[in-house]
């Protein structure tokens, strides 16, 4: 078996970070001209077609070569790159992405822009957050993508060994592609649920994807504890364009936790990941995420699940941080009697415009979907919740309920709910309810008259509001989510 160090297939992960990081007047990393070799294509005008954003087929080829990918993957990348250049920017139907620096995409994919390499490069607000969350220094550095991350790799390694006993495969897509046993499986599934034509950023994703997870759970196997991508994402310094592919075979059961709850900081400001989940007959997959990006991030993430007969898909999704988010995990209830449970929470503070939601396509008979979301807005934060329920012609007796509760903490914040329903089957039942509220003065008085300061009272109410979501999370994530809310609330009171 390959040494764990060698499996870090993230771009340039094996390159020593020997140069001092520098920043330009805009605070972006300056990529060193002298030490660049492999990715330094934009400099050469000759023989290469230059695109406005500097992203060339040669860069894509280089990424592919670096990973020693099979030919089909390279072809897919090149086709995606073409598609990316051909596709228009999506119409502005949600938050503006004007601030997104597409000219920098070639630097985003270069290894040097991946993560801060020096603790001094990490922005102060993030350092503060770590400090106040009580995360030890070593872990802070690892969470911010700084340091050796040795511990994380050990944990990841142990986790892999442990589940391997049951025939569970938990590895990177890159490694799966190099394995003759799994390459055909990746080939069969990769990019089939989220096609590159989906939108411009999906095309971009397929052109430059790097890192992420491949998980296969064999028939009938129940994985006893959650697999966490947290460790791996950090270990590789990946996470910008990561691809997650999970296949839970018939009757199997898996809980997968994506991301981490501490702020991830990258120089670059675009995250365009893709998550493809396949839940086979009678299987169950629970997919939990707490995303807490730094507040310069455009989070344009695409997640999709296909659920077979009698299978169950559960989403728990927390969106904190980021400047702009477009995030609507989609579930396709293909098989009869399949179910989807979606629990989500979004917290938008100052300068944040978060467009989140959930889409469920009920196409099998007797399918059920339950969507429960919460949104919190404060300090001028904007929250838009979109839900889309599509009931197909053959989805006899399908049932779907959508509930969206919004809490606004002041008069300058905003919260919108945009439900969409497309029901094409007469026996289906679809319900939607939305409430928007504020914290009442009476509640604050009540809690204060029992000794809580105003800030404590507000954060108690907000945590209570978020509680139905926290309850769905593993304990350590629930604790961190509550801490995050507390930090945001303290910030609000000053």
């Amino acid at each position, binding site marked *: 078996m390959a040494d764990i160090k060698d499996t870090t297939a993230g771009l340039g992960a094996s390159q020593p970070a020997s140069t001092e990081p520098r920043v330009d007047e805009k605070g972006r990393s300056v990529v060193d001209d002298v030490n660049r070799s492999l990715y330094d294509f934009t400099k050469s005008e000759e023989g290469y077609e230059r695109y406005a954003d500097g992203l060339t087929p040669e860069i894509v080829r280089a990424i592919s070569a670096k990973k020693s990918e099979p030919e089909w993957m390279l072809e897919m990348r090149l086709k995606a790159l073409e598609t990316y250049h051909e596709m228009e920017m999506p119409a502005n139907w949600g938050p503006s992405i004007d601030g997104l620096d597409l000219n920098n995409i070639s630097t985003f994919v270069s290894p040097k822009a991946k993560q801060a390499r020096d603790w001094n490069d990490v922005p102060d607000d993030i350092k503060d957050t770590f400090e106040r969350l009580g995360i030890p220094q070593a872990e802070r550095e690892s969470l911010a993508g700084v340091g050796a991350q040795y511990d994380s790799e050990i944990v990841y390694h142990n986790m892999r060994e442990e589940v391997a006993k049951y025939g569970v495969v938990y590895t990177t897509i890159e490694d799966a592609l190099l394995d003759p046993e799994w390459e055909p499986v990746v080939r069969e599934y990769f990019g089939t649920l989220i096609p590159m034509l989906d939108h411009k950023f999906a095309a971009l994703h397929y052109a430059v994807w790097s890192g992420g997870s491949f998980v296969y759970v064999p028939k009938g196997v129940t994985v006893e504890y959650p697999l966490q991508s947290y460790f791996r994402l950090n270990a590789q310094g990946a996470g910008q364009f990561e691809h997650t592919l999970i296949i839970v075979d018939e009757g199997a059961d898996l809980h997968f936790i994506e991301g981490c709850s501490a702020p991830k900081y990258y120089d670059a400001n675009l995250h365009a990941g893709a998550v493809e989940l396949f839940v086979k007959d009678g299987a169950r997959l629970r997919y939990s995420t707490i995303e807490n990006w730094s507040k310069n991030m455009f989070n344009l993430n695409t997640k999709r699940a296909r659920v077979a007969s009698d299978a169950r898909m559960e989403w728990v999704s927390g969106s904190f941080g980021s400047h702009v988010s477009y995030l609507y995990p989609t579930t396709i209830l293909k098989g009869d009697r399949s179910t989807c449970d979606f629990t989500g929470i979004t917290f938008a503070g100052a300068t944040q415009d978060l467009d989140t939601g959930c889409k469920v396509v009920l196409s099998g008979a007797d399918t059920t979907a339950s969507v429960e979301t919460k949104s919190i807005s404060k300090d001028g934060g904007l929250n838009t919740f979109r839900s889309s329920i599509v009931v197909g012609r053959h989805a006899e007796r399908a049932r779907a309920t959508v509930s969206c509760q919004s809490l606004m903490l002041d008069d300058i914040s905003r919260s919108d709910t945009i439900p969409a329903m497309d029901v094409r089957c007469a026996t289906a039942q679809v319900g939607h309810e939305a409430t928007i509220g504020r914290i*009442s*003065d*009476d*509640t604050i*008085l*009540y*809690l*204060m*008259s*029992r*000794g*809580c*300061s*105003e800030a404590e*009272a507000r954060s*108690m*109410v907000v*945590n*209570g*509001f*978020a*509680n*139905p979501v926290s309850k769905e999370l593993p304990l350590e994530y629930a604790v961190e989510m509550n801490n995050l809310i507390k930090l945001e609330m303290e910030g609000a009171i000053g």
Partner: protein
Amino acid sequence: MSQLLSITGLSAGTEDKPILHDIDLTIGAGETHVLMGPNGAGKSTLGHVIMGDPAYQVTSGTIAFDGQDLTEKGADKRSLAGIFLSYQAPVEVPGVPLYSFLRTICQMRPELKTTARKFRQRVAEVSEQLEIDDSFLTRELNVGFSGGEKKKIEMLQLLLLRPKLAILDETDSGLDVDALSVVSRAVEAYRADCDGALLMITHNTRILERLTVDETHVMVHGNLVESGPASLIDEIDEHGFGRFEGALGEKSEA
């Protein structure tokens, strides 16, 4: 006896409406006072103003408690200083489990800080005393509780927080016989265990039967028109507030 609460020349109201006029009221440590008066007289407002409800503005006068001037202080500071108000309609706080709420509000007071185990025992003890089922402790604070249950939860907090002054704003109103007896037991326990002072705002003289009342105050149209011994209660019981409303007429004419 040393004065625990001294209200001097207090006038207060909402932005557009004065409600309380020139109130003087003193309560000594461990004393039991009763505040009576017709509906809309401003009794609850006085309770809320003592607690520091920002819905009311104090336009003149002072509120001193245990040697501190609290007139400008927030409700949280007043609570920590030892004032407790039991609300007529306690609010529901979704998602906040009752037990962890109780733990939080007790742990923030140095004098009540204790180990998780001792606290659990104490809560179990008081819950039993108040006939509160264990299952309530894991439920969300007041959410879906009946009126009587909410009042019991108020009493549970009272006995755990051990304030120096408890203001009970019609805690006894709208209760069935059983709940009423639990509430009066709680009040007795508070008097006995904490030696705390009480300001009972009530229409109902039943709850007072088992208490030794030190002083009775009558409020009419936002004025404290008379203070006197416990026997005033019987008089009001018999004749109503007519005489006091007349007295106010004389007072304002004077």
